[in-house]
C-alpha cells in the first residue's frame, strides 16, 4: 500500500501545478480577449 505521506506529497504537488497552469491559461484568455477588443477599437478609430 502506498505510504500516506508519499501519497499526500505527490497528489498535492500535482494539484498545485494543475491549478497554477489553469490560472495561467485563464489569465491568458482574458488578456487575449481584451487585446482583440482594443484592436477592433483601434481599427474603428483609424477608419474614422
Amino acid at each position: 500500500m502506498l505510504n500516506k505521506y508519499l501519497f499526500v506529497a505527490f497528489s498535492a504537488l500535482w494539484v498545485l501545478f494543475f491549478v497554477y497552469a489553469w490560472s495561467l491559461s485563464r489569465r491568458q484568455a482574458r488578456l487575449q480577449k481584451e487585446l482583440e477588443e482594443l484592436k477592433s477599437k483601434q481599427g474603428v478609430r483609424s477608419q474614422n
Partner: protein
Amino acid sequence: MAKSLHPVHFFVTLAWTLLAFWMIFLYAPQELTMGEVQRIFYIHAPLAWVAGTAYTIVFICSVIYLWKRSPLADDLAHASGEVGFIFCSSLLFTGPLWAKPVWGIWWTWDPRLTATFVLWLLFVSYLMLRSYVSSPGRAATLAAVVGIIGFVDVPIDYMAIRWWRTQHPQPVIAGGEGSGLDPRMFLAFMVCVGAFHCLFSYLLAQRLRLARARREVSALRRTLGLRYTEE
C-alpha cells in the same frame, strides 16, 4: 515560432514527467532504512534545484534590467519569480511530509531549512513588491534590487549542508567521499531533475507569454488614450 513550439514543449514535458513517474515508482529500488516514503526524495530534491534555478534567473535578469533597462529581462525576471515561488512552496510542502515519518518532527530551524524558508520569503517579497508598487517602472527597478540582493541566499542554501552539521541529510550528489546513490536511484533522480526543469521551462514560457500580452494591452490602451491599468 514560439507559438509553434508550444505543443511540442507541452508534449515533451508530459512525456518526460510520465517517464519520471515510472522511474520513481517502478524503476528505482526501495531504500532500506526509510522504505517507501524515501521516494519523496525524487520530487523534493529536484524541486530544490528548480527553485535555485528560478532565483538565479531572477538575479541574472535583474542585473540585465538595471543595466540595459530591457523590458524582456524584466518580464523574464517577473515570470521566473512567480513560477519559482510555486516550486519553492512545493519544496517547503514536501519537505515536512518526508521529515515527519523519518525524523519524527515536521520542521526544525536548522541552517538548510532556514535558508530555504528565507528563499521562499524572498520570492514572496519579490512578488508583493511587484504588485503593491503602482508605477510599473518603479516596481521593476525595486524588484530588480531585491532580486539581486536576495541572491546571496542561493549559495548559502546550497552550501548549508556542507558548511554546517544539520538535521537535514548531508549531500548525496557532489557531497564528496562517502556520499553517493545507487546507480538506479541516481538515474531516476537525474531524470526527475530534467523533468522538473522541463516543467519549469514550460510554465515559465507560458508566464512570459502572459507578460508580453500584458505589455501589448498596456501599449494599445495608451495609444487609444484609455486609462492605463496594470492587472
